[in-house]
């Protein structure tokens, strides 16, 4: 795994708040170093060793469309990919005991609804976890906090049972969680 980069806490906050203006005045915290090895879609399924994307270069579940930049980034293709790891569509992002939820952000580009970002609900529903591009992971209170020009807005919610989340890539899920706890212990102020 590549070496993470550590930015000063205030540098990261200023950069992220200028890219996502809704974060200003909202409660949010940085949860990881700056890292290129995984992306938001991977982090949505608790994966922090590979990048998930239908780009033709990154991991994408077998037998699903990949490599076509416009058509394969459709909301439906992302929905099918998440269904492969146990998620199914649900109505909203409210907390449900025993379930793990994700929210898919989309944007309309050239008339197509293109998936741009995935956020995952925290274990006990106290906010959402987002990997912001190549930069840090954050925990934010509301899904609106990162809506805007970068990611568009939430178009779909999905959920899976926590048992399923633990079963399917369970070792990775536990490793990612331990990494983050360890990181937070060493960097109590964020970075």
């Amino acid at each position, binding site marked *: 795994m*590549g070496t993470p980069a550590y930015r000063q806490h205030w540098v990261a906050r200023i950069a992220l708040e200028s890219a996502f203006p809704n974060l200003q005045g909202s409660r949010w915290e940085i949860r990881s170093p700056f890292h290129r090895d995984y992306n938001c879609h991977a982090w949505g399924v608790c994966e922090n*060793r590979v990048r*998930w994307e239908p780009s033709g270069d*990154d*991991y994408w579940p077998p037998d699903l469309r990949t490599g076509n*930049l416009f058509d394969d980034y459709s909301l439906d293709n992302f929905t099918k990919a998440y269904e492969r790891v146990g998620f199914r569509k649900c109505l909203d992002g409210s907390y449900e005991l025993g379930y793990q939820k994700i929210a898919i952000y989309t944007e309309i580009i050239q008339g197509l609804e293109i998936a*741009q970002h*995935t956020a995952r609900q925290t274990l006990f529903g106290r906010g959402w976890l987002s990997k912001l591009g*190549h930069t840090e992971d954050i925990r934010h209170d509301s899904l609106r906090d990162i809506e805007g020009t970068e990611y568009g807005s939430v178009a779909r919610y999905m959920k899976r049972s926590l048992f399923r989340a633990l079963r399917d890539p369970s070792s990775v899920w536990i490793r990612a969680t331990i990494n983050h706890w360890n990181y937070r212990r060493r960097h109590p102020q964020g970075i």
Partner: protein
Amino acid sequence: MVVEPIYLDSPKIPIIPPALRAQVVSYESRNPYQSAIDRLVSRWDCEWFPVSSPLKIPILEERFREEAEIWDRETVHQSSTLKMVLHPSYQKIMAMGPDVVPLLLHDLQENRRSWFWALRHLTDANPVPSEDQGNLDKMIASWIAWGKREGRI
């Protein structure tokens, strides 16, 4: 007295003393097709050898670094490769053609920036095995090995 003509070897007009100007046979009148031939050769040279001069290489590298910095800065919060490759700076780098491949490989190794899409399209190659897709370390290693094998780095 026999006037010795002065033949010009180039379309550029040199500074000629007034006393000798009557003797000048212009470049065009010497060979009426010469200018057309020169223009054609010059065009072919640009098309076939876009980086034929070693002087052009530092310019390409400088342009690449400039555009790569802009691209990285402006897409750092993007998760989607779609928006990243549609960025004007990425498109400018793609338009630099196959000569930019060594620079992409070097940058991939040094800064781990995601040039996979450009590399795949500029080289018509994909050395990353399907089981390694998404794993940045392995993808970079595959491309670097390919570059060494093909003599691009």
